[in-house]
């Protein structure tokens, strides 16, 4: 059973298309209040997973829960979500206002003012009589976001939402997500290839590859893992730790298995550390400076080679 704070959870979720396993036993949990960043290269299964959560596709195996509901009960919970998956799709012959009004009526959202409010929120108030078919990609993305926000969702599911947005639009979008998360406690599941942007908003990450979640990690834990450090490979880690404490007066280090010490001090003067260790009879077998951003961490996790 999932924790009662989980907004969405998947257990061994599978999706098979012919002989291709798009999802291969995905286990993940998005907790209430998370901004959950999904990281994975093309074809990793991010969109497939989101399409299942939103009812566009049925899993071949495994289970899903949305707000604690599973099976057919999940459908009713979808009215609490706001969704933008792949390219935003609307009737090309209607304006932004007309498109949103159509969905407002369809979804039974009270108050015609909701449409104007949400258009203002995404800065599309001035499009007036312009039809959707004449919109730029950025405008389409904004309208997609407006639809996702229109019902004041508890859970936002966004697949590549900043594609096509200009830098100003990206900044505004980031601000909208942060505000929603902070003021309305909206939980957000977001995927993006722009990892630097994802790292600006996400509070938790799920790294995905070949239809599997490789790791789920909080932003703090990831930050710690990605901190720049000196990686010291020594013959005696215990003596090395004692030397660092006594000779350098620092406790900013971690002892890892395999006689490895990660030192978060002396980064600007590594010779000091090596000298102190040598003075105290600790053989330094290897030393390297290490540090990673989100992209490097992901590439290391999947075995390197290709970009997310």
């Amino acid at each position, binding site marked *: 059973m999932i924790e009662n704070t989980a907004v969405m959870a998947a257990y061994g979720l599978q999706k098979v298309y012919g002989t291709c396993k798009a999802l291969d036993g995905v286990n993940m949990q998005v907790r209430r209040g998370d901004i959950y960043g999904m990281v994975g290269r093309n074809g990793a299964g991010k969109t497939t997973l989101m399409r299942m959560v939103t009812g566009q596709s049925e899993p071949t195996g495994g289970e899903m829960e949305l707000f604690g509901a599973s099976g057919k009960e999940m459908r009713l919970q979808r009215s609490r979500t706001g969704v933008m998956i792949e390219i935003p*799709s609307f*009737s090309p012959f209607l304006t932004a206002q007309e498109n949103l009004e159509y969905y407002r009526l369809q979804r039974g959202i009270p108050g015609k003012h909701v449409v104007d409010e949400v258009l203002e929120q995404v800065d599309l108030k001035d499009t007036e009589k312009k039809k959707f078919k004449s919109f730029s990609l950025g405008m389409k993305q904004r309208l997609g976001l407006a639809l996702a926000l229109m019902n004041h969702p508890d859970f936002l599911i966004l697949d590549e939402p900043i594609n096509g947005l200009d830098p100003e639009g990206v900044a505004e979008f980031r601000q909208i997500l942060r505000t929603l998360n902070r003021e309305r406690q909206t939980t957000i599941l977001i995927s993006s290839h722009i990892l630097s942007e994802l790292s600006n908003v996400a509070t938790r990450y799920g790294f995905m590859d070949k239809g599997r979640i490789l790791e789920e990690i909080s932003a703090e834990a990831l930050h710690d893992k990605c901190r720049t450090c000196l990686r010291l490979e020594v013959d005696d880690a215990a003596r090395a730790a004692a030397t660092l404490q006594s000779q350098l007066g620092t406790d900013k280090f971690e002892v890892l298995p395999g006689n490895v010490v990660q030192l978060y001090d002396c980064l600007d003067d590594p010779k000091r550390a090596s000298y102190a260790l040598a003075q105290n009879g600790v053989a330094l077998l290897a030393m390297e400076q290490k540090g990673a951003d989100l992209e490097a961490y992901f590439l290391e996790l999947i075995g390197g080679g290709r970009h997310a």
Partner: protein
Amino acid sequence: MLNYIRAEIYKLLHRPYTYITLGIMLVLEGLYASMFAFHNSHSLVTPFGGAVATLVEMGSIGFCICLITGDIVFAAQYKNSTLKNEVSFGLSRTQIYLGKLLAQTLLSLAYLVVMMAFFIGLCAVCLPMNGPAGFYSSQDALIIVGYFLAAGIPLWIGGQAAVCMCQFLVNGEMASSFLYVGVVFVLDTTLEVAGLLSQGWFGNVLVKISGYFPNTMLNNAKSVVGDLVYLGQAWLVGAFWLAACTAVGLYAFHKKEIK
């Protein structure tokens, strides 16, 4: 469901396609009626009854209009990928399907009312009410057309259900239109020919089945005006097509991946 229908009507009222189609239909009707008026000014006079009674020859056009109204309502939702907006909000696929079918039917009925009223009104204005012997009187013509409509409405609704089914069975307007034309206009003739070429009970069954296709039923209706048994059969056949096509379409939609 009420919200869904309200939304569909909102979209229909904001689509130029809705008005352009109706406009073209009315222009064609106008031309048809003026053809009689033009004819009257040169030779034999065709009265109101004679012109109005020709409507019974146009039952097949009703099935074509079903295809057009279906297209207006469905609005290329596969091509525009807009079905995902409805499914992802938690609307049930049954609700979406029935909502589309109901909206299509309402639009078809609205077109029918406007077009009939326009044509009959135009004939009443442009043509003499009484004509030479051999033509239907105004009253007789209205009775014939009334019977034809009473038999036609359930059959057209069955046709509308076939349009909706085809839209959810195959992606793409062109493909679904071809499928509909095949089901409604070609399959009955094919079965009949196959039945006539076959021998024995199997051939008889095929011929019998071909008689229960909406277009065939409607074409036969004009020769049995006033036959209430046939009228009942038309309603039963219409209801059967509505139920069968809706069941198949719903099944297909529930199995479909939304792209």
